[in-house]
């Protein structure tokens, strides 16, 4: 069955390659034609972009103060390790909102937008960045009206928790904001930041991974599969390695 079937094969192959040359010379098509061997070219990989410390890229100073206070109640500091603020969750969310995630890149955003059943998923046109902008403003307004003279960051932790619990349950309805959905988004992004690779700005010093005992971006456990009931001995590593390998600036 290995014998060539088509006697036209050679002629066709020749015509095709001639045409491909003509085509390549006359258009700006970005599509690729591959044959002959697996292609290889240097720097074809797409490693993730390292989040660098520095000024807020999405949040205003007031928004950042609110977010830092909130993530530190969602994941509080305790004797097991740092809370959301020191773990960089606010920085993580800031960089996510300033990037493709924040603008809902790649999602289907064509109209009409109609309310539907819960099983049909999120049906609003606003992207995460817009949801945060509106949600944080409405939350700041709520706090100002309810606790005169104070911002969320200035509230006692017990009051911060009450506000967050009210958002979660829907007992607090922020003006113009689907409140429980906004809280769920904030919680989801905070936990993403706590457990994602540190390259994205959160999980600083692998605080989230150390909390649960996840070894991170290791790639070979062959010797450990059958060592049942033994604590895996090596500390976590991230895509960038480990913070104690890196020179402190």
């Amino acid at each position: 069955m290995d014998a060539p079937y088509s006697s036209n094969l050679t002629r066709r192959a020749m015509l095709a390659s001639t045409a491909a040359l003509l085509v390549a010379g006359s258009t700006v098509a970005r599509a690729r034609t591959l044959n002959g061997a697996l292609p290889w070219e240097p720097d074809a990989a797409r490693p993730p972009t390292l989040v660098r410390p520095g000024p807020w890229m999405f949040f205003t100073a007031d928004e950042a103060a609110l977010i830092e206070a909130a993530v530190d109640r969602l994941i509080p500091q305790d004797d097991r390790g740092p809370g959301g603020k020191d773990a960089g969750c606010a920085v993580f969310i800031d960089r996510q909102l300033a990037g493709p995630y924040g603008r809902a890149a790649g999602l289907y955003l064509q109209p009409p937008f109609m309310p539907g059943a819960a099983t049909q998923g999120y049906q609003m046109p606003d992207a995460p960045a817009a949801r945060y902008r509106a949600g944080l403003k409405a939350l700041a307004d709520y706090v100002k009206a309810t606790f005169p003279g104070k911002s969320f960051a200035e509230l006692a932790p017990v009051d911060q928790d009450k506000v967050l619990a009210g958002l979660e349950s829907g007992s607090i309805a922020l003006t113009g904001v689907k409140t429980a959905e906004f809280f769920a988004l904030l919680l989801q992004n905070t936990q993403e930041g706590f457990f994602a690779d540190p390259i994205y700005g959160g999980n600083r010093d692998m605080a989230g991974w150390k909390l649960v005992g996840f070894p991170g971006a290791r790639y070979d456990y062959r010797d450990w599969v059958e060592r049942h009931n033994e604590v895996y001995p090596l500390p976590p590593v991230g895509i960038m390695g480990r913070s104690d390998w890196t020179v402190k600036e």
Partner: protein
Amino acid sequence: MARKLPPKDVVIIGLGWTGSILGYELAKAGLDVVAIERGPWRDTASDFPPSYAQDELRYAVRLDLFLRPEQETLTFRNRMNQTALPIRRFAGFLPGNGVGGAGIHWNGQTWRFLPTDFNIRSHLEHRYGQDALPADMTIQDWPLSYDELESHYDRFEKLCGTSGKAGNLKGIKQPGGNPFEGWRSSDYPNPPLKQGLGATLFAEGARKTGHMPFPQPASNASEAYTNPLGVKLGQCSYCGFCERFGCGNFSKASPQTCVLPALLRFPNFSAQTESEVTKINLDSTGKRATGVTYVDTSGEVWEQPADLVLVCAFALFNVRLMLLSGIGKPYDADTGQGVVGRNYAYQTTSSVGVILKDKILNPFIATGAHGMIIDDYNGDNFDHSGLGFVGGGYMGFGQTGARPIQTRPVPKGTPKWGAQWKKATAETYQKAFSLSTHGSSYSYKDCYLDLDPTYKDRLGRPLMRMTFDFHDNELKMSAYLTDRLAEIAKAMDPVEMTPSPRKGPYDSTIYQTTHNTGGTVMGADPATSVLNRYCQSWDVHNVFVPGGASVFPQNHGYNPTDTVGALAYWTADAIRERYLRNPGPLG
């Protein structure tokens, strides 16, 4: 106006598992083949190297390797009287994108269907009576038997280097394997993977309760392996980044790992990437395809004439392309007439969450397909008399890792945030896992695919509309299986156990599986199938849909890929040995 390219013998739409297998088989036979793929070229070194492949946020949460809904999505509704709305972000199922397709992001769970799955309707009616099946259930026999497909399963498993233990070699039961499986002409090409503590404890519990556990068949190579195409696979390192990830270790079978290095060497094969086929073109009679039209990333439109058109996209998009090309009569759910889009089915999964006392499970040490499984409650392996349902599924411990953004079990009643959440998260991670059932999804009159009347893709073409919900039969089946699984879980002496049988309605926002099946069903009767037994269109004889899961008449209690791969080889043989000698209808 489309610019016309020189003709090819064969045009392949989509370069995933079926496209690469058909490409290899037909290029080897000397045909001039082009594969047109709408996504990018992807390869291990450039797209998922182990220097950064283990990135849960990027790949599992932000879905880097998957299809962007802005390029194509579906609309969805549970029932015919609802207005379908677009799936704006994929969540419930995740179609792949680019060269390799779903073969990149799958787990490697490699299951054959049961012999009785292939004649499911006749078998069930014979055993339980003509009235045993609900009136609106539209399951039907496959147009081929397990015996006919066996050698093709064997070929696909050898291509993948599948790891496992045979339970039935040429009719003789083998200790340690799946005692319920159909006969195998040979054992798996690689021995089973090693098992961690969770799977080992499950197997003990299963034996204690009278079941027969065996290692899950896995296309994660347990040893270094060279496949029949001469392509080498590396030994799996149990990194725990299979599902939703590309394998940086050349261990998980994929078109990249198993086929493309050999395929790209054929001078008579080429791949055209970032080019989306918009239509299969027909001649004036409508009985013969003349090739395809595609659009590249610059918006330029091309016509690729070909003698043979192979539809090798993901199951859902095979159906849409047939509908948009006007090949076969579209299904009308009101009348039950028509075939394209008919018998869409899925998978009915459920779980039992388990927390053990004082154990160190190291749940992050995993492959996509290791684990211990029982098959006692799959298909018709057990007597359904008096149970009020048909169908079944496999069940067991098959946890694919414990990446902590998505896997953080906590005891019941734990708050979702705050100090108690943090404490519970830290204390539970090493002691908890989820057991799962993987059940059948039979087809029904009101579960189908058609073109949406409102929503369009970026090229202005109608999106496909999915109408799907779980039926009572499947929910009862899931409840029964989950109860059986909970009995085994109980034998593992848990501190806490949480059975979660599948409940309706089907929720497109909660990930279950990407095992979307049906819509271009293969069958023996053109009134109830789009394709004949060789996966050839009844209407347009030079169009084949070679084995994507869209050809399944219903979905059985197993992952689809092994059957998809086997049918790809089955179709390749039919084209090479029958169709090329005498092009025309093979049915």
